[in-house]
């Protein structure tokens, strides 16, 4: 369920449908870039009412739908 919502958020940021597999790298398939990543972090904070600390601001933590979902799961 959470992953479906994350897919929607990434699609909004990328301004296109996200049809990739959940373990696919979102940067390599052109869905996220540096600025999209910044938007994604902000959106996750708003959506899940979490605070993502600076120490967690590592692109690898957010590079696939699986990784994003796992991270959010840890924080909520």
């Amino acid at each position, binding site marked *: 369920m959470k992953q479906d919502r994350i897919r929607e958020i990434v699609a909004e940021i990328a301004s296109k449908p996200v049809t990739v597999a959940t373990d696919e790298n979102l*940067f390599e398939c052109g869905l996220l870039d540096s*600025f999209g*990543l*910044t938007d994604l972090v902000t959106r996750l904070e708003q959506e899940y009412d979490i605070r993502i600390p600076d120490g967690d*601001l590592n692109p690898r933590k957010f590079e696939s739908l699986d990784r994003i979902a796992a991270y959010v799961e840890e924080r909520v």
Partner: protein
Amino acid sequence: MALLRGFGSYLPERVVGNVEMARLLGIEAEWIREMSGIENRRFAAKDESVAAMAFRAGAAALENAGVEASELGLVIVATGTSERRFPGPASEVQHLLGASQAVALDVPMASAGALFGMVQAALWAPRSGKVLVVAAEKMSSAVMTEPMERGTAMLFGDGAGACVIDEHRGFARIVDWELGSDGAAASDLKLEFDAPVHMNGRMVIMHAARKVPAAIATLLTRNQVAAGDVGVFLMHQANANLLAKIASTVGVGVERFFSNIARYGNTSSASMLIAASEWAGGWRGPSVFAAFGAGFHWGAMLVEGVEQDA
């Protein structure tokens, strides 16, 4: 107390456009502009040193401030592209200027160096009187040698900017600042001897886009200044898209962030002071300086325009 009294800059003569850069780097000229907003940059002559450029910018700032080099108590030089391990360029700049009474201090910090140098100047001004802060970079020497990182090399240019900070006289008072450092990211943006600039672009953009607006917000809140009341944001010119992102997060239009990056590219520490020296909109009310760079180091400084003596 410390006040801004004058700015100056120096840009090398040679203009290198995106078409030339694209040919040198094997990339598309239009892609450079889309990714960064950069159209041209300046490259120093082969024999033009960081200290030589710093001297030219420093002399211009002194002239604009109406201050003689002999009046300086401190010369601060920020650079990340010094030609040697030691000494840094500060003592050479002090000598070239003829500021024999001044102490010379190096700030080897790259992009945030000018901002940290200005904070040092504000702290030293009560003791040193007049302080010259210079930031100079010869980025071409660091990025245009093999092995090149093409996505990084296309961003940078050479130049120098300078600022005179005075204990008693000036057009804007340094009110407050907010600085930060995070060594956990030291390897994500670095220049080692005999190696090209290494930049983890995603890390840099992600952290810059979060930390700079946070520093500005903290600073403005602490001083009860609304972002909308700030006359101009003079920020390190890293990337036009980053400036737009930060402006949006701060809650002001991007036109409030002065930008000359299209003409000069990213001149690292020099860029903020080059921008300040070109800012012609006046210093009435509050203005904000801001920077982010290798280290990571980042921060913001609030200044407030004052009535000048006749």
